[in-house]
């Protein structure tokens, strides 16, 4: 049986709770084990690294030190956590002196990080470990050709994480096809949503997100699917602001890729927090209802 250590990350507790719920439900329905890392802490994100690097890596490594005793790969759904945890591993492997410093800091909490724990994104796990052929067998409510723009954003493919192409990734495209949807071909699939700029320099971020939505809609997307909490929040929760700032009138649902899987394999929308989205994914609900008749 496939099994992973689960590192939800801070966003999945709040703004991205629909992501957390859908990951847990989909893994459960497919029989993939998911054990939450006990009492995990924040990975430090980009922000800790810009204040004090060694502290950032040390607190990130606390999670890995706890996870190493579970003897499982770590599943990290947030693109930012995914990148930071991977960077922590890379840093530790790069220089034995840095590794010694990080372990010295961990020692203050009676912890040590001796092996290297694999960090995996659930998209990678579901498509490459579980497999699309296997997933296809579980599809009971195919997406009826629903046109979904796969939005990968930045930190799931960059810097060089290895499981997909940095400029034209295909993993989510193939997934959408297997679920019975039609992946939108558009050029912005790995363009940046602005990340924290939505807080620090809003106008810049609003324009980036407007360009992204425009590109997806111009290529006939009915919905956008994401893999990252910050992307989802920026494109969805700020859609009203994007519209008033850019004089547009978009109302496109932004779901997590796990929602598409969940609906297709017959999980109830409320169990996955789909009712908590701001722009209701009506067409996804329609898939769910029609198949019931």
């Amino acid at each position: 049986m496939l099994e992973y250590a689960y590192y939800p990350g801070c966003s999945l507790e709040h703004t991205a709770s629909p992501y957390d719920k859908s990951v847990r439900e989909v893994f459960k329905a497919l029989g993939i084990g998911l054990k939450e890392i006990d009492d995990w802490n924040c990975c430090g994100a980009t922000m800790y690294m810009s204040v004090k690097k060694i502290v950032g890596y040390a607190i990130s490594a606390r999670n890995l030190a706890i996870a190493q005793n579970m003897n499982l790969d770590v599943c990290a759904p947030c693109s930012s956590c995914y990148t930071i945890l991977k960077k922590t591993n890379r840093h530790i492997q790069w220089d034995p002196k840095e590794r010694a410093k990080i372990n010295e800091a961990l020692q203050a909490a009676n912890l040590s990080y001796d092996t290297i724990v694999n960090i995996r994104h659930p998209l990678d796990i579901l498509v490459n470990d579980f497999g699309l052929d296997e997933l296809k067998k579980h599809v009971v409510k195919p997406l009826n050709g629903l046109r979904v723009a796969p939005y990968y954003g930045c930190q799931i493919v960059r810097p060089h994480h290895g499981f997909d192409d940095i400029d034209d990734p295909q993993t989510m495209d193939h997934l959408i096809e297997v679920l019975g949807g039609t992946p939108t071909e558009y050029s912005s699939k790995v363009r940046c949503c602005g990340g924290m700029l939505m807080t620090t320099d809003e106008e810049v971020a609003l324009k980036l997100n407007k360009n992204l939505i425009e590109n997806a809609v111009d290529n006939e997307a009915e919905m956008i699917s994401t893999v990252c909490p910050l992307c989802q929040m920026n494109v969805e929760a700020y859609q009203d602001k994007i519209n008033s700032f850019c004089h547009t009138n978009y109302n496109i649902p932004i779901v997590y890729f796990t929602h598409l899987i969940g609906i297709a394999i017959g999980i109830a929308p409320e169990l996955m927090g789909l009712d908590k989205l701001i722009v209701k994914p009506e067409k996804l609900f329609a898939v769910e209802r029609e198949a019931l008749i």
Partner: protein
Amino acid sequence: MGTNNKLTQNRTEEDLRSAFWGQVNSFPEGDKIKNCLQCGTCTGSCPVSDVMDITPRQTIALFRAGHLTEILQSRTIWICASCYSCTVRCPVGIRVTDTLYALKRIAIEKKIYPDNFPVYALSKAFVNNIYRYGRNYELGLGISFFLKSDYKKLFKNMGVGLSMISRGRMGLIPKKIKKIDEVRAIINKANQLGE
């Protein structure tokens, strides 16, 4: 400009320069910055270079010309959204994003910031949150940043905040991890160990 002023300026620049070399040698492939061709691929790949006062390519050129103070006073390093496009496209493998993080650390250590763009305050608020709770407290982080930078933004963002709160997607009360003492001990120890 008086001679004394110039001397002080040179000393500051020298000091920043040595801090910068220390920083770029403290992460994998940081020293590849020496190989910069000034081709501009970083700037061309950057989704926000059009709103930077100094582009990523110019940042490296200014460093070579001995103008680190000017770089730290620019908005550039605080605008970077960490998309890593420059990093993966650089033909000589310069870790541009990591280099900008290194510059942020120097800016915070030396307290040299751009005018009217207090993004460093967000990083500081974040760091305080982690020490207090062990996890990020999104609502508190947003509020403390807006209060520090421009309180009017607090009102402008209230709509988004309320719509998230009403859907249970924004916690009102911060969650503290059980073993917060562990996180604090690690932070305290690591703080003594270097940059």
